[in-house]
């Protein structure tokens, strides 16, 4: 099967912070990447520094930021699902699973990335991760793509152990940084903090390695 990566996340910037480097590495290997992005992050609290957005302009700005970040990451196929930030868990779950499954059938991904259910903190993350897993479970287990899940709940190491996948992204750190910068409203404040300190632990955490868990299917 031809390699094809599918990303399923609810907010513009989820892809960049969590696995921007891994995406760039996939793109460099010539693998096509499809991104199903759930919302426009219209309820975000970060408004840029200095503040450039308000509640009404934020979705338009974040859509442009996402398109720009996708260029830096090498994502050629961006698909917006049109949900509203913070409300994904209240939507018709079966309809959401159907939409994800449709895309899965169309592009036949070999690798899928989403959040780890129960360990992704934001209810939108949880809802999309659950829907993604449910969609993939419609495929017979022997044909399912590999599913990698990001976790960042405060107890994820205790419960899940160390992530089994650690990707060294130092060779593409600068390009990941460009994608982070593209999400200006969401990253400007954070980047200000590190302006004089490129070795800052929080920044290094984003730029050295990315970690995720291979999802173990519980349903055949």
């Amino acid at each position, binding site marked *: 099967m031809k390699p094809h990566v599918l990303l399923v996340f609810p907010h513009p910037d989820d892809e960049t912070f969590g696995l921007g480097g891994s995406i760039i590495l996939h793109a460099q290997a010539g693998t096509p990447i499809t991104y199903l992005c759930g919302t426009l992050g219209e*309820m975000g*609290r970060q408004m840029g520094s*200095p503040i450039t957005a308000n*509640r*009404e302009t934020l979705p338009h700005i974040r*859509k442009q930021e996402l398109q720009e970040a996708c260029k830096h990451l090498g994502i050629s196929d961006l698909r917006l699902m*049109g949900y509203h930030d*913070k409300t994904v868990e209240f939507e018709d779950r079966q309809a959401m699973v159907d939409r994800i499954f449709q895309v899965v059938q169309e592009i036949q991904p070999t690798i899928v990335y989403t959040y780890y259910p129960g360990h992704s*903190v934001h209810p939108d993350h949880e809802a999309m991760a659950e829907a993604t897993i449910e969609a993939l479970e419609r495929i017979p287990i022997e044909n399912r793509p590999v599913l990698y899940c990001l976790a960042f709940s405060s107890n994820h190491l205790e419960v899940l152990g160390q992530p089994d996948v650690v990707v060294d992204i130092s060779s593409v750190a600068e390009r990941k940084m460009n994608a982070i910068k593209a999400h200006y409203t969401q990253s400007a404040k954070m980047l200000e903090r590190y302006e004089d300190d490129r070795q800052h632990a929080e920044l290094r955490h984003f730029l050295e390695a990315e970690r995720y868990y291979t999802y173990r299917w519980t349903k055949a």
Partner: protein
Amino acid sequence: MQPISPEKVQLLLEQFFNRDVYLHLETTNGSYAVLRGEKTISVGSFVRNVVVRFERGMITGNGPYRVGLKMEHGWIYAEGLTDWEPDSTQNGLLLAGHDEEGRLMIAFQLSVTPFGTESGEQE
């Protein structure tokens, strides 16, 4: 946005008296507040495009500011407002409160037409 000019906001508020207008009111301490400490929980609420009608309304305080709108059967109240959109007109008034890091903590908005429902769905 820019620091609130209470005189200008008061004049605009009065343009919304006694007519049906759309309200967006929101407070939040962030979905990730829960990660900041064991005892912190994420708290927030929003209503968007709810139709309201009020007969009086005032902005008060010395900054941060408060707004109270009196309706036939109740009140709309917001506090912690620091900034406004100076492009606000009698058709739409945007106020917000940001913390010292520039993060939005409260949004209070009135409009004579529904607020945008830009969904980002594939055009």
